């Protein structure tokens, strides 16, 4: 099980001679991660690392363990008593299992779920919630944050005249961008998107994808997607999860141009299953 997980992808394709992969600082190091729900193993023996300012794609069919993987990263496992994990995960070098202050960890990681969660408050308050939790109460300061985050989520133009209407009354695609704006208002170092485009129309999806390419300059992004082509468009490196195992990790372009170690990866990328 452990042997199928490849720790380093640099053997496939070097990003460039001048910047060897080892020199790029890692925001996340995962070593031999196992996740179980009761007796059911959701993820086994995964080891990987995420570099700073990259978009790290995670692809794979349903039930591959992609969402469970994200949940452990910001300790969402604490909300589900049935969820157990072992392994070594370091966020900016800090072991997260023994971390006492999980609130600080979560506030540094923004999460966007497949279905938008517009909190039952106004558009403005949705985006101002995270800054308020940090203790920012100055109206002018909040105004700036709200406008900037909504603008970066490509939503400002559509909602600037109705910041006081309910977030849950926006359309599905708008709510998903609101969720992204809310995640950005945390000023996260890591943004995790879990199949964000499921409830979003293709045009909006493209706009969000453009936003993500911009955001990469400021933060690291983990993009879980079941759209293989979306991973190809966005991700610098991609991991392929299948049945609770990490089959392969590699430079995205390399994987799509046939430089794969495992035939299952090629089959999946070419749409032969999954």
């Amino acid at each position, binding site marked *: 099980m452990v042997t199928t997980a490849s720790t380093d992808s640099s053997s496939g394709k070097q990003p460039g001679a001048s910047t060897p992969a080892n020199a790029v600082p890692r925001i996340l190091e995962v070593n031999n991660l196992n996740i179980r729900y009761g007796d059911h193993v959701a993820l086994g023996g995964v080891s990987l690392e995420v570099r700073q300012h990259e978009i790290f794609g995670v692809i794979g069919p349903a039930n591959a363990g992609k969402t469970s993987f994200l949940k452990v990263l*910001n300790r*969402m496992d604490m*909300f589900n*008593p049935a969820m157990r994990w072992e392994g070594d995960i370091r966020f900016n070098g800090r072991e997260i299992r023994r971390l006492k202050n999980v*609130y*600080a*960890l*979560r*506030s*540094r*990681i*923004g*999460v966007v*779920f497949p*279905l938008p*969660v517009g*909190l*039952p*408050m106004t558009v403005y308050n949705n985006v101002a*919630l*995270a800054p*308020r*939790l*940090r203790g920012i109460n100055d109206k002018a300061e909040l105004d700036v944050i709200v406008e900037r985050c909504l603008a970066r989520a490509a939503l400002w133009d559509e909602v600037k005249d109705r910041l006081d209407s*309910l977030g*849950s009354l926006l359309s599905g695609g708008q709510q998903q961008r609101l*969720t992204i704006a*809310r*995640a950005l208002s*945390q000023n996260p170092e890591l943004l995790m998107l879990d199949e964000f485009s499921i409830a979003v129309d293709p045009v909006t999806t493209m706009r969000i994808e453009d936003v993500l390419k911009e955001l990469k300059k400021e933060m690291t992004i983990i993009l879980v997607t079941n759209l293989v082509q979306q991973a190809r468009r966005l991700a610098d490196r991609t991991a392929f999860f299948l049945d609770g195992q990490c089959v392969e990790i590699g430079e995205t372009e390399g994987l799509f141009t046939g430089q794969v170690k495992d035939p299952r990866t090629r089959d999946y990328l070419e749409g032969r299953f999954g």
Partner: protein
Amino acid sequence: MFTETALNASNKKVQRLFRILFMLMTGLLILPVLIILTMLVYKGGSVLSIDFLFTSPTDGNVALLISVPIGVAAAIYLSEYAADNWFTRIINLAIINLAGVPSIVHALFGVGAFVIFFRFGTSILAASLTLAIMTLPVVIVATRESLQAVPMAFREACWNMGATRWQTIRRVVLPNAISGILTGIILEVSRTTGETAPIMFTGAVFFTPFLPQGIFDQTMALSLHLFVVATQVPGVPENLPFGVALVLIGMVLLMNSLSIAFRMYLRARKKW
């Protein structure tokens, strides 16, 4: 294509039948209320006067001042903090059973615990504590239900931003559960006003010419007053008990409508 088949016709007949049935049941519910109110106004209206109102007893809802904070806090703990294990399940079961205990049993408990053991005597304090214990389970159950009606996704979204449990409760859960919590409290307001048994032995007297001076005094309660006037005292003018009942019902209705208005105001602000 659009001609009515036999199946369509019978579906329509059944649908009409159920509509009428449900409508009749609803009417049946309202009927007794209307009859009681007309009777009371007709028979007891004549004794009502400003003077009568001020000499008639009033029932303090001190009980809810005690049971609401405790009940809401306990419900928040059970619903938002406590882990789901056998211990909390037993507590939940106990609360539900407590809600089903007849009020006379609460009354006897009140006598034993507050009047005799804590030496409060028959007083407002003892009666209020007894009523508080009686209303506690309902307040807890209603609060817990409305907390759990708030979708889990809201909590998780808030936790994921780094909010603590309490921040999440205060900013997301409570604002959305408050109208449901109030519903539970409203039911209890009217119930405590009308209850006779729990206060009969613990703090209420049939008649006292003075208003109570403190929480250790006895007090008159409308419900008990009515019970005694109607059954125990010979030679009371016939319309007097009806007048008392009218005041009692009037107070319950007044409190209910105030709370319902408040709840409607809150619900209009509800966000999803």
